[in-house]
């Protein structure tokens, strides 16, 4: 149990069985806080089932900008005994557990945690034959405990149930009010937060933010085959298809999805598809096809814990090796790993511009932790970005036609060939997955191995690979947090950065000399620059969510940087800042012992 009683922050967790509506209750309390001026980050402790089991929703809110899930739990609302048993040990002193004594027996609780008993089910039964509104009663109770205006909750309930018959929202609001009054009688608010009701912050998961960014960047073709935790993207696209004019293609499998995405891009669309690891494995041959035909595509992998079907609703950063090794032989690819929903939004337009400028597949790596139930509040999204379609021509330069064909794969100074799309007169070409010459003529059948054609194969292969050198120049270097020249340097990437950044804050308070290097652009790597930057690092600690330190191995392979200290998590749960803090404190101890 950690001690933490800041009045600027709240962590809370709702737990219940699947089917109890815990996710929508969680999203409602998230909205209450984000509409009260708070910055919020959430995590969906989901299971891969529809009813029963145990699910939870974690919310971290603060008056300051936050990134991760925070420290411990200030308020626990267990609707079932299992929810209490699973989470009570994480309760912070000064916090409270709000529970229905009929459902939950309190045991082994820290005496500095308050027990707030509310007959949740009894109150719920006042408004319906079944006690389904008990989570709403609990939300009302919670509002009293954290001292937030109950009207904000009433509005959130109205929004949530507004489309159903009026009695549903009305009864829920009454139930919430009863819970609120009940707790108000028992205690003053346990948090003394200055809520600012005039500031309302939008909250989105990385999946939603990416979908929004993609459409804003001109993507109107989206293909998918349902797979957690990528499904929220297709849900968002489908529910906005009519309004925004999006063509959503639900393919018969991921092979079809990837090939259709390539077809759509070849035909001139900005096309994207998304999946998780298993689906991505099926897409690989086609991603090689995109690279060989120099067709731009954006492919999203929302990682979940594997291997194989793995843990469908749990998180991991374990697919990096797959991205580095997609499909047979060498071809250029770009790998981006935005760290949070906000960055995911801006990564979409970047990905499309990179894909079209260099005519390569661009992979975006998200993960369950930020992708599915992982909401974050986002401030002032800027939609004014440039759409750069690269060398897309509508009339052929004379030197690029022979009366029959357009020289689609011309060798140029920057290794990028002008491109045309079907429907454009006099610019016909064949996009070939076989090796081909500058005109797209086959080298694989009657010409393969002939001495005149060996250099052509070499040149074409080089032309594709050398695009990486140009792309590198556009890759962002790691973002550095904390003082330069610190004793300890945390190296991390993607969503793991969030817990690290928040841990840094606490570590600095404790006087630890530590900084961090957060990577969001993963590949191709500016190896010289990265090596130079990391030469200023202290003792390096690699933090990531996989077993084999995949990113650290990439750093070694590309930049020759060797890391020997690791915090690796692979139990399916995201990294919490206190875990990073603990590891760094232990590392400091070791270092001092050696010194």
């Amino acid at each position, binding site marked *: 149990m950690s001690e933490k009683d800041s009045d600027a922050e709240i962590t809370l967790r709702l737990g219940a069985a699947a089917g109890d509506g815990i996710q929508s209750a969680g999203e409602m309390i998230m*909205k209450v806080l*984000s*509409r009260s001026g708070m910055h919020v980050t959430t995590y969906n402790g989901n299971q891969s089932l529809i009813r029963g089991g145990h699910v939870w929703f974690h919310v971290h809110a603060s008056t300051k900008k936050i990134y991760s899930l925070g420290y411990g739990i200030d308020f626990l609302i267990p609707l079932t005994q299992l929810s209490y048993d699973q989470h009570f040990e994480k309760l912070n002193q000064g916090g409270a557990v709000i529970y229905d004594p009929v459902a939950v027996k309190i045991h082994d609780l820290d005496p500095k945690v308050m027990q707030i008993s509310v007959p949740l089910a009894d109150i719920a039964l006042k408004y319906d034959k079944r006690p389904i509104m008990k989570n709403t009663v609990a939300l009302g109770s919670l509002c009293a405990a954290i001292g937030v205006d109950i009207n904000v909750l009433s509005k959130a309930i109205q929004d949530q149930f507004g489309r159903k018959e009026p009695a549903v929202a009305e009864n829920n609001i009454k139930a919430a009010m009863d819970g609120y009054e009940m707790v108000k009688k028992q205690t003053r608010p346990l948090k003394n937060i200055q809520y600012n009701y005039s500031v309302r*912050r*939008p*909250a*989105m998961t990385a999946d*939603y933010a990416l979908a929004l960014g993609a459409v804003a*960047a*001109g993507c*109107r*073709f989206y293909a998918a085959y349902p797979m957690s935790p990528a499904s929220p993207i297709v849900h968002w696209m489908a529910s*906005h*298809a*009519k309004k*925004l*004019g*999006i*063509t*959503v*293609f639900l*393919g*018969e499998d991921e*092979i*079809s999805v990837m*090939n*259709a995405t*390539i*077809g*759509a891009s*070849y*035909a*001139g*669309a*900005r*096309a994207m598809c998304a999946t998780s690891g298993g689906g991505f494995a099926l897409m690989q*041959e*086609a991603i090689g*096809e995109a690279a060989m035909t120099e067709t731009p595509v954006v492919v999203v992998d929302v990682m979940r814990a594997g291997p194989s079907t793995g843990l469908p609703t749990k998180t991991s950063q374990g697919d990096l090796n797959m991205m580095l090794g997609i499909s047979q032989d060498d071809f250029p690819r770009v790998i981006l790993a935005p760290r949070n929903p906000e960055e995911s939004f801006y990564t979409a337009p970047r990905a499309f511009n990179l894909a079209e400028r260099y005519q390569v597949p661009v992979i975006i790596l998200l993960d369950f932790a930020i992708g599915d139930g992982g909401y974050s509040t*986002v401030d002032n999204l800027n*939609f*004014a*970005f440039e*759409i750069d*379609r690269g060398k897309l021509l509508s009339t052929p330069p004379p030197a690029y036609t022979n009366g*029959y*064909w357009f020289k689609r794969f011309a060798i140029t100074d920057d290794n990028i060939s002008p491109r045309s799309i*079907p*429907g*454009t*007169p006099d610019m*016909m070409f*064949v*996009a*070939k*997955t*076989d090796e081909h010459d500058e005109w797209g*003529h*086959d080298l694989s059948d*009657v010409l393969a191995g002939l001495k005149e054609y060996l250099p052509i194969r070499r040149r074409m292969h080089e032309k594709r690979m050398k695009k990486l050198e140009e792309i590198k120049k556009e890759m962002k270097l790691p973002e550095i947090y904390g003082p330069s020249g610190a004793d300890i340097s945390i190296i991390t990437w993607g969503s793991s950065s969030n817990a690290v950044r928040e841990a840094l804050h606490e570590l600095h308070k404790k006087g630890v000399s530590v900084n961090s290097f957060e990577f969001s652009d993963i590949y191709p790597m500016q190896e010289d620059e990265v090596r130079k930057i990391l030469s200023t690092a202290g003792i390096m600690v690699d933090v990531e969510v996989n077993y084999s330190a995949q990113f650290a191995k990439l750093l070694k392979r590309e930049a020759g940087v060797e890391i020997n200290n690791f915090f690796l998590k692979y139990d399916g749960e995201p990294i919490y800042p206190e875990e990073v803090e603990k590891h760094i404190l232990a590392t400091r101890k070791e270092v001092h012992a050696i010194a």
Partner: protein
Amino acid sequence: MPLLNPKPFESDTRADWCPGCGDFGVLAALKDALQKSGRQPHEVVVVSGIGCSSNLPGYIRTYGFHGLHGRPVPVAVGIKNANPKLLVIATAGDGDEYGIGFNHVVHAARRNDDIKLIVMNNEIYGLTTGQLSPTSKLGQKTKTSPDGSIIYPLKPLPTILGAGGTFIARTFSGDPKHMSWVIQEAIKHRGFALVDAISPCVTWHNIYDEVKKLFYRLEDRGYKPDDENEAYKAMNAQDGIPIGIFYRREDKQSFQERLAEINGGRWAADNVKSLGSEIAQSLVQEML
């Protein structure tokens, strides 16, 4: 632009098939049918997979996509969904379409995607030097069945009829006029058209003489392709090899027609643009 070239679909690239290969007939018929369709080369995309037959794009002067083994249909569907103004034709072998990629054919038929699929069926894997294909006959001797095939052949046409296919035909390289006619009708069809083109492999499994002896034209017998049960019967004929259009209906909307009801005809290839700031803000508001 005026068409100066009298044969606009003629390519400068020579087909490298074995002399006598049935695929030459398919290529000639396709060129003829396209010429007669009134379409211009730049409005047509020919998509293929991998196999001798799949080398066809490039031997014909249109846009082309020579893709992966088994995957021309999803590529074609992606193209059509992004820009339905294009005429999209997939051409590939029996291994490509009835084997590794058959799943896609079933679902394209079910959706009634407005693409045309010409399968050059030679009952063998030609390019990989003669192995069993899904349409190889029971007892057929190949490199992978030296003792004769012990696997029953697939019946692709009734399978696709069952999947909801709206245009199902068979034709034969040895009857070029018939083949051109069938392809022309497929092009005119509203939605997915499957053309099973018997296209013998003279090198690994020469069935020219056999087919020539056994084939007959459904039209010659007054057959009308408007009844599903009659179509099953005709497809299962035991009295020879029927060619012609087995089944055709024009009353089913294509997938792209139905898509247009959702996307409002704002097709992705013509809509690479950012969002207006009002719409953008309304989308953010939804997440407030």
